[in-house]
């Protein structure tokens, strides 16, 4: 037992040590509570800690070929800690500082700035927002050179607060379709709103401590990291959007209309290539205010474009032939107590069904529909609904206008409902819903929903992909379809839209001119539209043009809307080589080829190279922007210095980098093509005059 007692002794020694340590812990508690207690309790009151959100970077919106439509760039707000600078420093420089502030921000006089700074200093405030203006990186660099501020954050008291701002490389192009965000970067309208969940990401959260007037993060390991937003790839074609928008704008100004919409859709894929909505503001200018093509305010009585559906019902459900005749009389016909009129004074007399459709005779279609469906109107309504018109499309953008087609079971159904529905009244459709019907005719009878977002991506990885939903595989028989297409072509060849005939490719479509229903009655205001597709032989695009309340004497769909359609179709036909060809080769993605590194932002480029194991080294001292040079088997970074006031050299950069550099240099950027920058319209190193424009070509 000698061994055991020896061990026991040692255990007791160890136990004693632990007891001693326990005593020390108790003493420390006593010390912290009794002796230092006041100090810690006071500190607890003074330190302000708060959990603040850490903004997630919002995702980008891309066009169909990867051009940036919306992205977030950093901007800065300028604030000041007036308690920081010494008396001497402030006294010597306050005049020149306030002069610079006033001259740069133009929101206050130098005197006012002086008063605010001194007052805040007297009140021992540690934070003063100097201006609400959001400045870019280049301006920030300039301000850092100012007197007082150049002493830095601690001695000079300058505080820059970073704010991410939404930037649209194509300016107002497709503004309402792309949408916008509020000051917290939350989508308010358009795609920014509809895809806010995907774009927004998830803000993180971290503990911040208030120090000298600003919140500094406490890196305590508990922060929840922000999850950056995803990108969305739209189907918008920037060039086509531009064509559509300018054609619409010209027509609206010409006719002094209230608003107008254009939607261009690719027939086979259902992809929206352009969507423009322009409304007149009180000053008489047009801007993108509301998406009439999609939204509920755009759901109105479509007028004669709906005759396509009526014709389809007649051809499909009855044995009516295009060569049959119909008596339209003298242009006035009474259904019960309501008089229906045709546009042509004196009427069209007895005409064939084909002529009736081409000349858009209201009386003709109404008489035919009443003749065949008058006893069983629900059959007509059911046909239209089963065909696929009258149900919401479930479009990807929020706030789709609900379509409405009156049915015999409705309390407001009357004897005149059927004849009026037959030519596009007593029902409501948005331009997009009408277009979907025309697209189905162009698409060999297959009705699909339009889509505007192709995929949600995280960098190059597709997170979610969208495909058009098939609403109706076959809206009608082959014969009916052939007849309908003949009719739609006839409208342009001989009918109401013959004013846009004469192109060397064929357009097919239907005009519409609906009287507007305002405050419970029909007034002499019109809703002019043209919906159709082209080239008629092998339809590639379908399109609808809507112009609301045109004034200057011309009011008809043929005069007002059809020319816009033609202008867009002409431009696309001349630009888009694909229209001539039946098939488009699949886009080959060369993912295995490593992109050539030519120029860009050093920290990012070297990180990429390091990740891929490409040997690289710096040949420039401390330069952020670099170009590359091959040195043996490795890449050497040479300086590509961005000098103030001079045009930077962006050749070889990605669009994102080039935009950042050029915008910061105060240049307005116009973009052509995609890929990396191939050439720039202003030579690098020349002087920049404020607000001048530069064109860059990507390739």
């Amino acid at each position: 037992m000698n061994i055991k007692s020896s061990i026991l002794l040692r255990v007791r020694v160890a136990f004693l040590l632990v007891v001693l340590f326990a005593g020390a812990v108790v003493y420390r508690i006593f010390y912290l509570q009794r002796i230092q207690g006041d100090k810690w309790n006071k500190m607890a009151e003074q330190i302000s800690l708060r959990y603040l959100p850490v903004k997630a970077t919002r995702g980008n919106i891309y066009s169909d070929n990867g051009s940036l439509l919306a992205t977030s760039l950093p901007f800065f707000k300028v604030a000041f800690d007036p308690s920081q600078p010494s008396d001497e420093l402030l006294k010597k420089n306050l005049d020149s500082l306030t002069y610079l502030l006033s001259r740069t921000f133009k929101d206050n006089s130098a005197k006012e700035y002086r008063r605010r700074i001194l007052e805040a200093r007297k009140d021992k405030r540690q934070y003063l927002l100097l201006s609400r203006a959001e400045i870019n990186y280049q301006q920030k660099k300039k301000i850092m050179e100012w007197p007082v501020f150049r002493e830095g954050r601690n001695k000079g008291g300058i505080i820059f607060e970073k704010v991410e701002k939404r930037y649209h490389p194509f300016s107002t192009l497709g503004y309402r379709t792309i949408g916008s965000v509020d000051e917290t970067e939350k989508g308010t309208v358009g795609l920014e709103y509809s895809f806010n969940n995907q774009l927004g990401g998830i803000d993180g959260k971290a503990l911040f401590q208030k120090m000298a007037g600003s919140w500094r993060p406490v890196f305590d390991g508990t922060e929840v990291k922000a999850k950056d937003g995803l990108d969305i790839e739209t189907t918008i074609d920037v060039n086509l959007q531009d064509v559509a928008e300018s054609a619409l704008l010209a027509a609206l100004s010409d006719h002094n209309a209230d608003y107008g919409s254009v939607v261009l859709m690719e027939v086979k894929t259902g992809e929206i290539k352009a969507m423009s909505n322009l409304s007149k503001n009180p000053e008489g200018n047009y801007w993108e205010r509301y998406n009439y093509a999609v939204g509920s305010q755009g759901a109105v009585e479509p007028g004669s474009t709906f005759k396509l559906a009526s014709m389809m019902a007649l051809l499909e459900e009855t044995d009516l032939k295009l060569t049959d005749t119909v008596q339209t009389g003298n242009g006035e016909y009474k259904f019960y107590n309501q008089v229906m009129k045709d546009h042509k004074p004196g009427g069209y007399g007895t005409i064939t069904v084909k002529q009736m459709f081409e000349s858009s005779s209201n009386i003709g279609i109404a008489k035919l529909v009443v003749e065949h469906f008058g006893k069983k109107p629900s059959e007509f309504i059911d046909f239209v609904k089963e065909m696929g018109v009258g149900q919401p499309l479930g479009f990807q953008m929020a706030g789709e206008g609900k379509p409405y087609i009156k049915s015999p079971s409705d309390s407001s159904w009357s004897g005149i409902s059927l004849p009026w529905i037959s030519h596009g009244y007593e029902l409501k459709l948005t331009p997009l819903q009408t277009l979907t019907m025309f697209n189905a005719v162009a698409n060999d009878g297959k009705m699909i929903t339009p889509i505007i977002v192709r995929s949600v991506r995280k960098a190059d990885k597709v997170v979610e992909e969208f495909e058009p939903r098939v609403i109706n595989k076959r809206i009608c028989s082959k014969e009916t379809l052939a007849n309908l297409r003949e009719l739609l072509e006839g409208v342009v060849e001989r009918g109401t839209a013959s004013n846009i005939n004469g192109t060397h490719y064929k357009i097919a479509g239907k005009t519409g001119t609906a009287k507007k229903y305002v405050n419970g009655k029909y007034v002499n205001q019109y809703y002019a539209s043209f919906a159709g597709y082209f080239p008629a032989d092998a339809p590639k695009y379908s399109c609808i043009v809507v112009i609301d309340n045109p004034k200057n004497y011309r009011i008809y769909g043929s005069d007002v809307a059809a020319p816009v359609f033609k202008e867009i179709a002409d431009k696309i036909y001349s630009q888009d080589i694909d229209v001539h060809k039946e098939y488009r080769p699949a886009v080959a993605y060369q993912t295995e080829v490593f992109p050539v590194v030519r120029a860009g932002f050093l920290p990012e480029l070297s990180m990429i190279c390091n990740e891929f194991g490409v040997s690289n080294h710096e040949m420039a001292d401390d330069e952020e922007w670099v170009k590359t040079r091959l040195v043996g088997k490795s890449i050497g970074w040479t300086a590509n210095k961005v000098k103030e006031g001079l045009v930077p050299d962006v050749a070889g950069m990605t669009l994102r980098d080039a935009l950042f550099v050029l915008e910061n240099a105060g240049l307005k950027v116009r973009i052509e093509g995609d890929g990396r920058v191939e050439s720039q319209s202003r030579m690098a190193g020349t002087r920049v005059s404020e607000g001048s424009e530069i064109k860059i070509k990507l390739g």
Partner: protein
Amino acid sequence: MIKEWIENNLKGDPIIWAIVLALSVLSILVVYSATGTLAYAKMGGDTEYYLMKHSVLTILSLVAIWGAHKIDYRYYSKLSKLALWVSVPLLMITYLFGNTMNEASRWLTIPVINQAFQPSDLAKLALFVTIASILSKRQQSEEELKESLIPILLWCGVICGLIAMSNFSTAVLIFATCMLLMFIGRVPVKYLAMLVMIGALSGAVALTLGQRGQTVISRVQSFLSDDESALPFQAQQSYIAVASGGIVGKGPGQSDQRNFLPHPYSDFIYAIIIEEYGMIGGVTVILLYLALLYRGMIVFMQSERAYGGLLSAALSFALVMQAFINMGVAVGLGPITGLPLPLVSMGGTSQLFMGISIGIILSVSRGELDEFPSDVKGNGKRKVAAMA
């Protein structure tokens, strides 16, 4: 009836059982209070999520105690060797591919149940049991003791070295505990001094090669520094918690500092205990651990075999030392470490390993009682005795 059930099922030292139950109840109370912020940050405000998770783990660790105390402690000698061999590749895999948290990879995720698991917990337990076993076999002469040094040193070096790469404070604790074990196991002090030197050297190597060098240096520097402003945020918040607790504390669930103190449910749970239960609560917890250690010593004294005695001493010292280091950090007696408070902190699988530790101590305590009449002979008889 309950009493009968306890007597039939909970064998071994009843006081150890009582202490463990007391700490478990405290644990659930404090962890529930301290995980509020975490619940808002990670679980969308579902505060019951962590309560449920922790309660389940606490119950599971009680089950682990129960299971471990049913097994004859002599089996642990063999089991621990196996566990030690398994833990080496596990530690390596963890270092290279494990889940990262705070820039240190310490966790492996067990595939099917999707539970994070720290291989260092397994390695730690296996190492202590192995050392107790090696030492107990070589008590007859100093020559034998010297022989025992090599395997101990080897295992201790490998395990501590691997753990030090990603978790320096745990490695130091394990190394210190090994030293203490050897001291208790009558290894001469001159050898121990030599070992400490080797340990310090390899510690430095691990710091240079591993992931934690910067953290350790800055934490130790800020601890040694006199500059008040250099006081780390965690320490500052912890002191505020301790100071604001007073004698009786703010009351259960009334902590303010839990919102700001990082890991208030594990590394700094002692500060929250003092804040909510005051000096009285803090001292009570200390007394509970001291009592636990004392009962471990009683088990040691009552055990007939050197192995059982050393095993119980090793495990109780390891547990209590970790407890005091955790408490020491909270009140500012040492640099900041990431060690949980055993039996109290919320800590996933480490709670289960702590349970097994306690279970082994209890197994030693009951093993002797059962064995007393028939001593030396094989296991068969013992089982019959246990059933009777």
